[in-house]
């Protein structure tokens, strides 16, 4: 978005999701943690309750009933329509991200059961170019929304993104309109959309599908906003209030329905599905 939340996208190199290895350190409290134990704890720090960033695939594993996820459009890959080159060609960035993550792009979409309820589940992947939304994310999401509409299934999207993907410029901008338009049709058809916001959800992702949930849930202490904190600070030339743009801030200002601990996400989602009768 015009001069906004790119600092998160920018930070990808330094602040990746949970790295591999036997031991890992909590980014919030610096506690050294045994990775296996952390995994069983859903990558939430047992000491300070920090919800770590996890990959889209990891998120699917956490959300879906075991072995029920049926991926859609797995083979869709990014292109480089503008032959974009900054300090590095976009093409090289794509290849590097694909190597690093083993994924084609920054989202997993598919059908899945959540506590026995059939859903369409989409999980964004911050490990792939900061979870930025380019044509692949937009197209896979739109296709998932269309599928949810056809089958009248509840749609669950876990957002995790630094915003739009600059290297696809106008193409990525238009994915905001595309996903929102697909959600309009889903809404017309009476579909239930549960939007889950995780750390971070910013820029063009927040300003499109992520904020359009019938119910919006957020993980604790996630960064959620339109413009990035750095850009805001530069614009207004003053310090930002404590806790600005956190899940708790959004709850208080009225833009999030519930803050949900990662360990309760599955039960909260299924409960909402039941209330909606879907």
């Amino acid at each position, binding site marked *: 978005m015009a001069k*906004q939340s790119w600092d998160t996208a920018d930070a990808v190199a330094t602040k990746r999701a949970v790295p591999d290895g036997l031991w890992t350190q909590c980014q919030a409290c610096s506690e050294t943690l045994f990775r296996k134990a952390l995994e069983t704890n859903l990558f939430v720090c047992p000491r300070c309750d920090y919800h770590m960033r996890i990959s889209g695939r990891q998120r699917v594993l956490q959300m879906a009933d075991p072995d029920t996820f049926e991926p859609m459009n797995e083979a869709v890959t990014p292109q480089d329509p503008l032959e974009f080159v900054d300090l590095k060609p976009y093409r090289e960035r794509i290849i590097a991200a694909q190597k690093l993550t083993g994924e084609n792009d920054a989202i997993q979409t598919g059908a899945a059961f959540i506590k026995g309820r059939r859903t369409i589940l989409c999980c964004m992947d911050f490990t792939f170019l900061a979870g930025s939304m380019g044509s692949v994310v937009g197209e896979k999401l739109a296709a998932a929304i269309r599928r949810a509409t056809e089958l009248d299934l509840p749609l669950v999207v876990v957002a995790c993104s630094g915003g739009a993907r600059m290297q696809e410029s106008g193409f990525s901008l238009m994915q905001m309109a595309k996903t929102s338009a697909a959600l309009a049709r889903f809404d017309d058809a009476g579909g239930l959309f549960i939007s889950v916001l995780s750390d971070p959800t910013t820029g063009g992702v927040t300003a499109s599908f992520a904020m359009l949930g019938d119910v919006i849930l957020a993980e604790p202490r996630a960064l959620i*906003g339109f413009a990035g904190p750095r850009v805001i600070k530069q614009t207004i030339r003053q310090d930002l209030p404590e806790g600005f743009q956190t899940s708790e801030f959004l709850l208080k200002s009225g833009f999030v329905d519930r803050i949900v601990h990662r360990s309760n996400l599955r039960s909260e989602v299924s409960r909402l599905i039941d209330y909606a009768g879907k």
Partner: protein
Amino acid sequence: MAKAPSSSTFQLDFEQTILEIERQVSVLEERPDCETFREELETLRVTRDALIAKTYANLTPWQTVRVARHPGRPQTLDYVDMLCRDFCQLHGDRTFGDDPAIITAFTRIGPFKVLLIGHQKGRTTAERINCHFGCAHPEGYRKALLKMRLAEKFNLPIVTFIDTPGAYPGIGSEQRGQAEAIAVNLREMSRLRVPIVCIVIGEGGSGGALGIGVGDRVAMLEHSWYSVISPEGCAAILWKEANERTNSLAAQALALTAKHNLKNGLIDAVIREPHGGAHRDPKAASEAMQSWIVEQLGELTRIDRDTLVRLRYERFSRIGATGTSTST
């Protein structure tokens, strides 16, 4: 209402020679004995016109951005003066306030009664500060949607003029849900049951632009820009610093000109500007806009509403560049 001031106090570096000749012309024209310089004047005018034509035919993307931001470039309210009749402004979002960075009004354009929505940057320093330099707050987007619903109810087509560096990044705007306001507009504009035509008249900065930009037909003025991020924002992140050189590289890479956006299928038309840009002849620019608007509305108002909404949905659903991997 704001009037386009003379651009004499503002200089684009790549226009220096043109401006110098323009100055010489006006000096000669003002002399009481100017008749005796008729030939020289004619030569100067011809040279100037040739130079303008050449410069503007070869603007780099970064130069285009700077023309789009020219302080003398006509803004929404200038076009209102030139192409709208019976202008009836409607204020306020009924919830928080009235954002002067987005103007909404009933008005008449050609044979059509329309709802007009446009970003307004302001001309004087006071106006510019008041309008946040054309950066709207959530209440601006909500006002726009409220009035668009009114247009839908009374079956009026919608015309939007886009001219913003981006939606405002501030504490209040985040607190009041900038992201939600834009998101809701995207969703709702995609299903409004009246024709919507949009023109990027200056700057098309990202979500702040798209927030009033989901239309059946989208055009750009020849020297405007439209992109996911401003060149400076892009340079600061991808090139690690924004300066003249990196801004220029970013503008090039972002494919933000009207020509590029048309080629990429992101917009439907480029509206030609008068020689030397809209700021040199606002009237000509407004006439070109008016004839495009009237032509589009003539077509769109004849389409039945279900088809109209379906075509708009399909227009945006088509956009994207993806491939298929063979290895998966």
